[in-house]
């Protein structure tokens, strides 16, 4: 994000973004990190106004003084939570998680105490099937205007005609490469990703510690579906992974620090991280493999028996307010499918090829499938890969 557009913004926040960048560079609590440590409970209570501050009209009624949100690291604008507390008297308690699997594990174990959480598209049918989430009462979320949302990123929230989740933002999973080391060669495919790892980039590549993307992108080497659970296709992917493993720098979803320090030259990467790296180090190029890969969409949903459901609804509604949501985007760097929010965002951001890849690239991407998430063979494959 360049400095030029600051004047066009609905609110002046350039300083805030700089702060955010600093925070993220020094941050240790990233997805993989939390995943491997099992410490997905890094909890922060958003201190704010004392409960009992006069609530604004929009939130009249008794919301209590607390709401619990389970989400991803560095995925919100903290100023928004403070504003919410000011407006409603409700403090936001944030629980940060490392993976969808971990969130699912916690909800399956019961007694999570969450009011709102942020699942990814392919998990929602599983939550519904497992009877873990409630359909949303859209009357309590007036800021969710279905027609304003790109259906592509909203549809997975609807199961059997009922809306269980409303869209937060979306993104892609490609890879980021340090072009200083490519000797002028431009990488465009997953095949190149895996091949260069075995040769020039030996010891410099990182893959996610995460079966969905690591196996999915290995499947792409052969042109198979990202979501394949076909044993023969998985066997091919496994062969490739085992062959590549000795050449990997790390199996770790916390790739920013290693890429920034120069230890690693290439890594599987999500939109927001690609954007952040590229802004700070222009030689970091975000690539979406021509063969395809993952596109995903994150949602707000509410678990069954949420203890503070009224406050939960109020929070979702607040965050979906286009003005608020725009601030969110500037903080996390992922695109949203809400045209009202986009109208408030600077043009440069809306034209950014990392956030909004070219149509022909986007068209090849696949949403993760529910079956992929729960497939035991893929889980075992990853275990074999990691222990090899």
């Amino acid at each position, binding site marked *: 994000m360049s400095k030029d557009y600051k004047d066009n913004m609905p609110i002046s926040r350039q300083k805030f973004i700089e702060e955010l960048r600093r925070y993220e560079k020094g941050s240790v609590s990233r997805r993989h*990190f939390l995943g491997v440590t099992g410490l997905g409970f890094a909890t922060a209570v958003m201190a704010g106004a004392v409960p009992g501050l006069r609530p604004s009209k929009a939130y009249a009624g008794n919301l209590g003084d607390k709401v619990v949100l389970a989400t991803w690291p560095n995925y919100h604008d903290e100023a928004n939570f403070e504003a919410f507390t000011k407006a409603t008297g409700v403090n936001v308690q944030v629980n940060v998680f490392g993976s969808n699997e971990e969130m699912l594990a916690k909800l399956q174990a019961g007694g999570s105490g969450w009011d709102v959480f942020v699942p990814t598209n392919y998990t929602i049918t599983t939550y519904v099937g497992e009877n873990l989430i409630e359909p949303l009462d859209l009357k309590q979320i007036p800021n969710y205007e279905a027609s304003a949302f790109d259906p592509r990123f909203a549809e997975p929230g609807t199961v059997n005609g009922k809306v269980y989740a409303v869209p937060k933002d979306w993104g892609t999973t490609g890879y980021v490469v340090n072009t200083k080391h490519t000797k002028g060669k431009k990488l465009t495919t997953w095949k190149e990703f895996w091949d260069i790892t075995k040769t020039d980039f030996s010891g410099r590549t990182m893959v996610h510690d995460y079966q969905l993307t690591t196996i999915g992108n290995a499947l792409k080497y052969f042109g198979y579906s990202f979501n394949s659970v076909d044993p023969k296709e998985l066997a091919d992917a496994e062969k490739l992974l085992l062959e590549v493993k000795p050449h990997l720098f790390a199996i770790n979803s916390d790739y920013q620090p290693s890429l920034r320090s*120069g230890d690693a030259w290439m890594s599987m990467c999500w939109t927001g991280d690609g954007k952040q790296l590229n802004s700070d180090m222009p030689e970091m190029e975000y690539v979406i493999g021509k063969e395809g890969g993952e596109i995903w969409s994150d949602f707000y949903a509410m678990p069954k028996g949420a203890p503070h459901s009224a406050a939960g609804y109020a929070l979702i509604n607040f965050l979906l307010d286009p003005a608020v949501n725009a601030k969110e985007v500037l903080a996390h760097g992922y695109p949203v499918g809400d045209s009202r929010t986009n109208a408030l965002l600077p043009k440069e951001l809306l034209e950014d090829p990392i956030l909004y890849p070219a149509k022909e690239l986007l068209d090849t991407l696949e949403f993760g499938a529910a079956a992929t998430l729960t497939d*035991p063979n893929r*889980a075992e494959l990853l275990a074999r890969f990691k222990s090899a």
Partner: protein
Amino acid sequence: MQAKWINRLLLMPATVWLLVMLVLPLIFVIVFSFGERAPAGGYIPAFSFEQYANLPARFTAFKNTLTLAPLGTLAALLIAYPLAYYLAVKANPKWKTLLLVMVIVPFWTSILIRTYAWIYILGGRGIPHLLEFIGIDGVRLINTPFAVLVGIIYGYLPLMVFPIYVSLEKLDKRLLEASADLGSPPLRTFRQVTLPLSIPGVATGCMLVFILLMGEFLIPALLGGGKVFFIGNALVDLFLQSRNWAYGSAVAATLVIIMLVTVTLYMKLVARVGEQREDVSIL
């Protein structure tokens, strides 16, 4: 009669704690280990040995753990012993407290933060960068088994140093003079007097480090770049990623059994060594 009640009262908190925190979870683990994974993850009650039959799928992880735990213990011992010896025997009493505090101070920070610091020390901007100044290029330390070993030694050193320090500290220094007086040079005195009398500390330290290493997952994940895979890591993945509770329980139960067997054998061995040395104070 009264004494009995007092005894029971005194033991009550520990008993409750053990029951709730150790026995109960262990029973759950054993029950779960005979069950099956639900299609979407989790657990379905069943009675099958399928999970145990499937244990070979984690053979490498077991093998890695059973190699690392003894090696890491040995490496920690080899570094901790001289340090403890220095602190207890050689260090100037004036500095002793300060030096001891310096051994403990790292414990005041979370192991997470400390291990993370090692990522930077061993990473490209750390030691390898310094080595470049003296003309040694291309050294890679981070995400290697070596880095894991460094992290383990660093993380577990105090646990090893302290028991050994205590046993060396309470060793009567006049025994060393007596040995020298009877014609034994320093090295032999060390072998015949110092070492045998510090065996209780060595045994305690080794036991602590070994048991904790058997379940270690953080250091290999962070300093081994996820490429070094131990049972601890397998368990984290089984419960938090694939949510295969049944299989995860079987792996955990197996780990507990292996640990019990090794620790029992080890205690027997140490007790035997102690008996040979005619010292009842061991363990």
